[in-house]
């Protein structure tokens, strides 16, 4: 028995060292519930940073309030845990002040689409070069189970015990309509898929919108790991990521797709554009 455990731990340690993602984890232990999808997202972001060899000190992670708000504390980088809904403008200010930094804005569905939803169209149309990670668990978790902007219509929650009367927002469709230059969706249970998307998103010069689907294991007994695992399909290889209409069709499809929906690599980022018009 001892022998087996020892072997198991050694193997795991070797794996972890190989992945190198601990280089991007702080010493703080996450406060999320056991089984939360945010653990997987955290790991995939760390792995993507490691694969891209980003210097820790050049990463700035900005969050708002909510379960995802605590994320910067668990990452080895510069972090700013700000106000509910305001991670986007603050991340924007950081990037505009120092273009050498890699800037992430992270937040949940309440943070990014509810209270902070007004900032989304503008960061997208300005194409400021930050990566937005939307941790979407379709519920207000930190305040214990109220309906959010992405809770399915009719789902019973602690704020709507007879069923949520509001139609859910569609984050991918919104991002495409707002003209985000990079739009993708990942699933918290698909580590490799997320890492791939994250690397593309971080490398993208311009605003990257990454929608992440994750269950809330504590307050949502409907959208569980099992339901999600069976409910998402990878985008077919034949999809042309430069075709915005095709991307919109995928976003509006009855099925839920995972992967990169859209990427416009030709459009200059906000700061590149400013340099172009002011040097002319």
């Amino acid at each position: 028995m001892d022998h087996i455990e020892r072997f198991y731990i050694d193997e795991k340690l070797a794996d972890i060292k190989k992945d190198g993602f601990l280089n991007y984890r702080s010493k703080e232990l996450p406060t999320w519930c056991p089984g939360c999808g945010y653990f997987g997202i955290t790991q995939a972001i760390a792995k993507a940073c490691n694969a891209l060899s980003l210097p820790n000190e050049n990463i700035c992670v900005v969050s708002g309030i909510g379960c995802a708000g605590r994320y910067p504390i668990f990452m080895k980088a510069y972090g700013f845990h700000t106000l509910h809904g305001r991670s986007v403008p603050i991340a924007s200010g950081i990037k505009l002040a120092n273009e050498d930094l890699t800037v992430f804005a992270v937040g949940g569905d309440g943070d990014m689409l509810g209270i902070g939803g007004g900032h989304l169209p503008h960061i997208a149309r300005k194409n400021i070069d930050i990566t937005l990670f939307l941790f979407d668990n379709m519920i207000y978790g930190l305040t214990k189970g109220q309906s959010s902007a992405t809770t399915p219509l009719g789902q019973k929650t602690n704020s709507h015990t007879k069923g949520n009367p509001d139609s859910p927002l569609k984050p991918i469709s919104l991002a495409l309509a707002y003209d985000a230059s990079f739009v993708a969706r990942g699933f918290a249970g698909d580590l490799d898929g997320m890492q791939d998307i994250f690397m593309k998103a971080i490398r993208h010069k311009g605003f990257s919108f990454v929608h992440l689907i994750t269950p809330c294991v504590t307050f949502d007994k409907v959208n569980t790991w099992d339901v999600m695992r069976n409910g998402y399909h990878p985008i077919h290889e034949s999809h042309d990521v430069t075709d915005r209409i095709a991307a919109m069709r995928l976003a509006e499809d009855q099925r839920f797709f995972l992967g990169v929906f859209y990427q416009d690599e030709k459009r200059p980022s906000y700061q590149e554009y400013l340099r172009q018009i002011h040097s002319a």
Partner: protein
Amino acid sequence: MADIDIVIEICGSAGEGTISAGEILSRHMSSLGFEIMSFDSYPSEIRGFGKCVAHSRISNQQILSPGKYTDILVVLNDSHSIPQLHAVRENGVVIYDSQPPAYHEEDKSIAGWMAPGMIAYGIPLHSLANKAAGSARGRNMVALGAMAALFGIDEEGFKTSIMKRYATKKQVVIDSNVNSFEEGYVWAKKNVQKLDHLTFSKVKLRKVTQNRIIINGNQAVAQAALDSGIKLFAGYPITPATKIMEIMGKELPKRGGIMLQTEDELSAIGNVIGAGFAGKRAMTATSGPGFTLMTEMTGLAVMAEVPAVVVNSQRGGPSTGLPTKTEQSDLSLVLAGGSGDSPRIVLAPSTVEECYESTCLAFYLAEKYQTLAVLLLDFFLSNSIRNIDEPSLPDKKMLSANISPSKTDLKDYRRFQLTESGISPRALPGTPLGMFVATGLEHNERGKPAYDSKTHLEMTEKRYRKLDGILKEVSPPTWDGPKANVDIGVISWGSTAASAHEAVLKARKVGVNAAFMSSMLLVPLNVDHFVKFSAACKTILVPELNYSGQFAAHLAQYLNRPIEKLNRITGLPMPSEDIFEKIMEIADTQKR
């Protein structure tokens, strides 16, 4: 050689060139060596048939307020000008169009409303303009020409000033304006018999030794921000602060900076705090309604200890209020706006010169003390135009004020280290060993969220300790007048302080034992000086442009005595004449 100190008002409809005539007059008089203070009032409608007034006080002596009474009223539109007559002096001059293009209804003609003592000069503005340029558009220039002839202003120099104003326009525009001016000048010289005694020609002028520039408060703030090394300006348009954003949009890119027009004021202050976190100087400018939104993030700058500079140019309130009228009613909001105990810096300049000085200070203090600095202007100060000596640039110390962690600090870095000064060395993103997480939650020295009572007390005390250092960085309040046995002590702030200062100087000239105090730095307030001043004065008077007496109430908690108040919410700047009258009234009561 005589002295002169007169107010000229030009009144017309929006689109008649009222404001540009006022501007040309002010610039020309300044170029001759006069002191000028100009203030335009206009409707919030963009064009329409709204009323415009260009108000200029011109003197060969120091000017601190715009002047309440008009010596010369130039009427470009009769019905709009009738209400302006009440401010014209008993023996004041009125210049009006003696051959208006359309028939005036009986009670709409300015001539019917003038008081008997007033001196009226009828000039055929309309027909002279038509004669000079084939269009009535040059009526404003005809009026300027007539004024130059009537009040002894040299003709050729004035023409040069007009050409300068329209230098970027087509030649035909320049010619039309100059010819209209000429027409008015010649006609008035020939046809008007001068009945008043006002003239600029025999005035002794002080030698202009330094370069003088003509700017308003908004321009002074913008220039100071540029001179202080601003890298990001983020803003949302709002009267009366929009001009600052426009200047930034033009000037910042030339210096490698960015002007970001945001979706709302939340985003504006968010971007400023973000840039501050990244170690660059940033600012936003707004008015009361916008500042109300920004109070969401004032506490974050204080709690996360990030520099942020916010300009609030006040207008009439509450709510959307009076967008194009001046008031000082946001003081309470700015002193305390935001949740919790959040010590911040509040600077309220009282003159255009101080707009420049206080903006430089705001950048320096916000960066060094890692906190929020609010500049409190008002509609009047933002738009009042002065000719001032070129301000001296901020020195090296002020341009680079962040206290960075030492190598030893970085060995075991505590971003929010408890120190005697309250300032903890601040690592900027990109520094290899300085990584930390800033948070709006209460936190320990390492930035980790902590809600225990000891940490909260220690950290709150640390944030408040910074105020002691800030107080020592800024010159003490102005105290003009005797240091003991004062009969009337006048305390004021912001633009009203300048009017109050002028009123006190005038009262002292007529033998009233009065003294004046004001402070550009409102938070932290130099309480000792105010207490000493109060102790030296029999009566304390606090004039300000709000209904409830917000500064008086703020002072009362320190002074612990009855305070006389003088409040105005007319939408206009505080007349020094009103303060003078109040001082005389108190002096009278004291004698009884």
